[in-house]
């Protein structure tokens, strides 16, 4: 028995190719296909049903204290209407999950976790004495969408009005909409400079979804599935739990994780702190012990293919392997904006020995062939309103 979001009927009626993901029945793509959906997000906008994500609300008087001792980032840093990246760390500094913590404008907290880890996270948090934190699972009552891409602000403005849209990354605000309200957050999983996540009562999400699609129909907005969500996050260098983050790897193996870990003296102890401090000290000091590898970007320099598990070689010696990899489409840019032509390129994220840094020429082995590539810090760069492919 697979779980279904409130939009399942729409997905079925509009050519969604349904697959099972983390126990949920969701579209991997619609009729346009992954490539067109990916390209739409980079040039115009794409709309995703992300209601499968887990949503926990914490509104009790003890919520802040509970979050400060159980999450790797410091919830005390969040003012109302702000959010940040964080981890559920085990005592050894390994990730149970990566998550986003929102402090709602009225003060309550919202923790958004991966669909596949929701049950485990819930049990874990309950094992850490959440009494007084007012912890509840609101995944079913509150639906979630992601509207991402350079024209997402324009689309959203047509539906919710341009007034009051959060203007800076990680800001969020409630906006009135047709008698109800929508939490609009300037966050996302595509790397887009213009990107929003929307939270709305489950009973209203069908109307919000169709209103957004209608508002964006003349602007190039497309509904997009899990396939494009994965290629977009990979191109943006963002981790996927189970790939770049693994339950037996140190959290700080992922360089981006430093944005979700606060080791400041004033916050006191939290779960995993000692282990995370050891990892941070090792990375700062240069010795190799608990964190022998780091996640890096890899871009092919010729046409070819790479996939998760492909060995990465430097002068014939294996220095790591891909944690994610595929071929993604990219627009050819003209004068700082995407043109009309696109091409495809093979990219990946890899767990590589720490001495292998950006600029290193490598070979990626796939199906008996060694594809020439290069290690990079980023696979895309922000170019004003757009994310521009590098290489």
């Amino acid at each position, binding site marked *: 028995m697979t779980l279904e979001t409130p939009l399942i009927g729409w997905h079925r009626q509009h050519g969604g190719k349904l697959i099972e993901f983390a126990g949920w029945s969701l579209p*991997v*793509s619609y009729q346009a*296909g992954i490539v*067109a959906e990916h390209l739409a997000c980079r040039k115009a906008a794409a709309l995703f049903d992300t209601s499968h994500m887990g949503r926990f609300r914490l509104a009790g008087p003890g919520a802040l204290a509970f979050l400060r001792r159980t999450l790797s980032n410091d919830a005390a840093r969040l003012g109302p209407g702000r959010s940040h990246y964080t981890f559920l760390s085990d005592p050894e500094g390994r990730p149970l999950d990566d998550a986003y913590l929102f402090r709602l404008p009225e003060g309550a907290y919202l923790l958004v976790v991966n669909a596949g880890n929701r049950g485990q996270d819930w049990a874990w948090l309950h094992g850490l004495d959440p009494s007084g934190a007012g912890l509840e699972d609101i995944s079913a009552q509150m639906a979630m969408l992601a509207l991402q891409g350079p024209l997402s602000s324009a689309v959203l403005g047509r539906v919710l009005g341009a007034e009051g849209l959060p203007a800076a990354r990680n800001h969020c605000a409630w906006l009135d909409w047709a008698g109800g309200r929508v939490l609009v957050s300037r966050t996302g999983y595509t790397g887009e400079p213009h990107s929003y996540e929307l939270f709305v009562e489950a009973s209203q999400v069908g109307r919000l979804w169709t209103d957004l699609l209608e508002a964006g129909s003349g602007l190039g907005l497309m509904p997009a599935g899990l*396939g494009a969500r994965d290629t977009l996050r990979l191109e943006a260098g963002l981790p996927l739990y189970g790939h770049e983050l693994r339950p037996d790897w140190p959290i700080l193996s992922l360089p981006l994780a430093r944005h979700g870990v606060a080791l400041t003296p004033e916050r006191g102890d939290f779960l995993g702190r000692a282990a995370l401090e050891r990892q941070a000290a090792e990375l700062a000091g240069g010795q190799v012990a608990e964190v022998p590898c780091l996640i890096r970007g890899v871009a092919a320099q010729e046409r070819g*293919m790479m996939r998760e598990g492909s060995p990465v070689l430097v002068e014939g010696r294996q220095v790591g392997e891909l944690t994610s990899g595929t071929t993604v489409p990219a627009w050819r840019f003209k004068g700082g904006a995407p043109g009309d032509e696109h091409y495809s390129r093979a990219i990946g994220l890899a767990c590589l020995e720490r001495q292998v840094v950006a600029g290193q020429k490598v070979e990626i082995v796939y199906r008996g062939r060694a594809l020439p590539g290069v290690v990079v810090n980023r696979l895309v760069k922000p170019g004003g309103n757009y994310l521009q492919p590098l290489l």
Partner: protein
Amino acid sequence: MNFPDDLLYSPGHLWVRAQGGTVTVGISDFAQDQLGRVVYVDLPSVGQAVAAGQEMGAVESAKSVSDLIAPVSGRVAEINEALADNPAPLNDDPYASGWLARIELSGALPAELVDAAAYRKLVGA
């Protein structure tokens, strides 16, 4: 699903359009549907010898890879270079702009190739 009557079909789900001593090959509508969205295609090189029933390349979809099994024996005369930049025609137009290669036959067409009616039965369409 669409299986044009003027084509022959191989057990590896490629179609063959015979034009004298050279044939054009591609993947069938059934194959593209099974694969899902193709993200990369690994084609043989021009001049390469291929043998019926042997691997001559691969098609990569978002989550899986499938070998391309040569439907005929011969020498690759031409490949569809445009697919390298944009493999979308493999899904959207498999019998025309999604063609894979043109192959100069080294002998007769293999007996395993079947007509559209027999292929429809094979794939249960």
